[in-house]
C-alpha cells in the first residue's frame, strides 16, 4: 500500500518536470517582460533590475537556477508583488480558493450523487426525466452567466447577500461563489451516478438479490458501492480543479484566491508567480488523482488484488 503510494508519487515527478519546463520556456518566449511599465524605465535602471533578478543570464542557466531553488522548496520572489515571495502569495491565496472549492465539492457531491441515485432508481419515470433535463441544463450553464444572475437576484434585487468581496471568509460572502462553482458539477455528478448505478442495477447479482426478496433499500446500498467507482474517479480531478480556484468566479466575485493571482501574474509577466501556481495545480492534480485511485481500491476489492 505504502509502496504503491510512493511509486505513484515518483511517477508524478517527470510530469511535474515537464510542467515546469513547458511553462518556463513558454513564458520566456513570450514578448514583454516583468518590468515593462506604462512609463518605460531608463535603460540603466532596467539593466540593474534585470541583473538583480538574474534575467541577464543565459536562459538555460536561469532554468537551472530555478530548478535548483525548486529542489530546496524555494519558489523564488514574486516579480510584480514587491517584497513578497511566491510561496507567501500562494499561502495567502490558497486558503481562499481551497475554502470555496471544498465547500463547492461537498455541495456538488452530496446533491449530485443524491439526485443521480434517485434518477437511477426511478429510471424511465418522470422524476428521472426531470433530473436528466435539470442535469443537462446545469451542465450547460456557464459560470460567467450564473454568477452575474445570482448577483442580480440575491445581491441587488433581494439584497440578501453581498455582491462581492471576501471579508475573511464570512459565510454570507461564501454562498454565491460556492453555488456558482458547484452548480455545473451537480449536473455532471448526477448524470454519472445515474448511468453507472443504472448499469449495476441491471447486472446478474443485483437481479438475484431481487429474486431472493431482499428489501430494495438494501439492494441499492450494495449496488451503490460498485456504482460509485467512476464517480470517485471523476471526483479526483474535479477536486483539484475546484480547490485551485476558478479564474472566472474569483474575478466576478472579487475574491483574492489563486485564480486571481494567476491572471495578474500572467498579465504582468510575473514569471515566478505563474510558475508557482501552475506547479501547485499540477501537484494537486497528481495527489488528488492518487487519492481517488486509492478510494476506488477501497471500494472495489478486485482493484486491490490487481495491484
Amino acid at each position, binding site marked *: 500500500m505504502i509502496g504503491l503510494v510512493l511509486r505513484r508519487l515518483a511517477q*508524478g515527478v*517527470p*510530469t511535474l518536470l*515537464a*510542467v515546469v519546463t*513547458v*511553462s518556463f520556456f*513558454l*513564458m520566456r*518566449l*513570450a*514578448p*514583454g517582460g516583468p518590468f515593462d511599465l506604462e512609463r518605460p524605465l531608463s535603460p540603466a535602471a532596467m539593466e540593474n533590475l534585470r541583473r538583480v533578478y538574474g534575467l541577464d543570464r543565459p536562459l538555460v542557466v536561469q532554468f537551472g537556477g530555478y530548478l535548483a531553488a525548486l529542489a530546496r522548496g524555494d519558489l523564488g520572489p514574486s516579480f510584480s508583488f514587491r517584497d513578497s515571495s511566491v510561496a507567501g502569495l500562494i499561502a495567502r491565496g490558497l486558503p481562499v480558493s481551497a475554502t470555496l472549492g471544498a465547500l463547492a465539492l461537498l455541495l456538488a457531491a452530496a446533491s449530485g450523487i443524491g439526485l443521480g441515485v434517485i434518477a437511477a432508481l426511478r*429510471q*424511465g419515470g418522470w422524476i428521472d*426525466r426531470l433530473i*436528466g*433535463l435539470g442535469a*443537462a*441544463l446545469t*451542465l*450547460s*450553464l*456557464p459560470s*460567467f*452567466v450564473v454568477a*452575474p*444572475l445570482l*448577483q*442580480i437576484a440575491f445581491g*441587488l434585487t433581494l439584497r440578501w447577500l453581498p455582491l462581492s468581496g471576501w471579508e475573511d471568509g464570512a459565510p454570507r460572502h461564501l454562498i454565491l461563489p460556492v453555488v456558482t462553482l458547484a452548480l455545473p458539477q451537480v449536473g455532471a455528478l448526477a*448524470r454519472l451516478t445515474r448511468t453507472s448505478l443504472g*448499469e449495476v442495477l*441491471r447486472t446478474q447479482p443485483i437481479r438475484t438479490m431481487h429474486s431472493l426478496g431482499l428489501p430494495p433499500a438494501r439492494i441499492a446500498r450494495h449496488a451503490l458501492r460498485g456504482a460509485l467507482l467512476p464517480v470517485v474517479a471523476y471526483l479526483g*480531478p474535479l477536486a483539484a480543479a475546484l480547490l*485551485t480556484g476558478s*479564474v*472566472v468566479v474569483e*474575478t*466576478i466575485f472579487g475574491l483574492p484566491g489563486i485564480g486571481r493571482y*494567476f*491572471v495578474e501574474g*500572467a*498579465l504582468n509577466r510575473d514569471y515566478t508567480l*505563474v510558475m508557482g*501556481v*501552475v506547479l501547485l*495545480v*499540477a501537484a494537486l*492534480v*497528481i495527489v488528488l*488523482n492518487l487519492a481517488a485511485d486509492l478510494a476506488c481500491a477501497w471500494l472495489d476489492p478486485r482493484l486491490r488484488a490487481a495491484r
Partner: protein
Amino acid sequence: MTASAAAPLRTLNRLRRQRAALTALAVLVLIALACLAGPSLTGTEPDRFYPDLRQLPAGLTAQPDADHLGPALERIAFRIRARVEEARRDGDRLRLVLAADRPIDTRGLVYLPRSDLFGPAQVVEDGEGGRRLVLDVPVRSLRFPLGTDIHGRDLLARSLVAGRVSLAVGLTATLVALVIGVAYGAVAGFLGGAVDAAMMRAVDALYALPFVFFLILLLVFFRASLVLMLLAIAAVEWLDMARIVRAQTLSLRERDFVRAARALGLSTPRILARHIVPNALGPIAVAATLLVPQVILLESFLSFLGLGVQEPQTSWGVLIAEGARSIETAPHMLAAPAGFLIATLVALNVFGDGLADALDPTASRR
C-alpha cells in the same frame, strides 16, 4: 462488416423514439440555420450603430417610437445647425419644420438618411429666405426583438453573427480533436503491447497538466487569435477521444473480421480505416457530440476573459462579457446571447445523451 450493416438503421429507429433528443436536434438545426441566415433574417445590420437607440429593451415595437423620435431629431437638427420647430408624425411620414437664424444649408439634410432612422428628406416649403424649411421625411420602421446594446446595435443580429463564430469554433476544434484522438487511439489500441503502453502513459501524463492554465498563458502571451485558440482547444480536448477509441479498438482487434483482414494481408492503415474505425463510429459519434458543447463553453469562457475572439469579430462569450458589464442598467444584454448559448449547449447535451442511449444495446426499451 455485414453484421453491423443494420446497426445504423437500428440506431436511427431507436433515436426516433426519443422525443427529447429529436426536439434537441430540431432546436440545433433551427439555431444553426438562423445563425447562417443571420442579418438577412433580422433586416438590420449587426455592425450598424444607432446612437439614438441605445440599450433598448427587448420588444416588438417599431423604432424609432415616440420616445426616441424627438431626441433623434434634436441631435440631427443640431448637426444641421437648426432647431426643430415642429415635428408631426403621420404613420411612416414625418412633417418636420426646421428653423435657424441663418439660411439652412440643405446639404446637411443628408444627416437624416445617414442616421438610418429616416429616408431621404424632401423639401416641401422653403420660407424666410431659407431660414425655415418644411420637410417631408419618410420614417423607417425598425424592429429589435431582443433590444440593442450600449452602442445601439441590434442584439438579435449580433447574437446570430456571434453564433456563427461560436458554432464554427465548436465544430472545427471538435473535428481537429476528433481526427487526432481517433488516429492516436486506433493506432495505440491496434498495435498494442509496448507501443500502446507508452502511448497511453503519455496521455495519462498529459491529463495531469493544468491545461486551462496553459491555455490562458498561451493566449495572454501570444496575442489572442482565433486560429491559436482553435489549435489550443483541440490540443486539449483530444485526450478523451483517444481513450475511447483505444478501448474500442482493443476489443475490435480480436474480432474475426479483423483477423480475416489481417490474414488476407491488408496493411495496418487499411485495416484501421476500413474495419476498426467504421465499427467504432457509434461511441465516437457520442463523444464528438458531447465534445462540441464543451468546446463552445471553453471558447466562450476564453472570450469572456477577453482572451478568445477579438473585435470586430464577436462570439457569444464576447457578447456575454459585454452584457455582464452592464447588467445593472440593461439585463437584456446578457439575456440575449446567454439564451442562445445555453439553448445550444442544452440541446447538444440532450442530443448526445439520446444518441448514447440509442447506441447502447443494454439500455432498456422504453
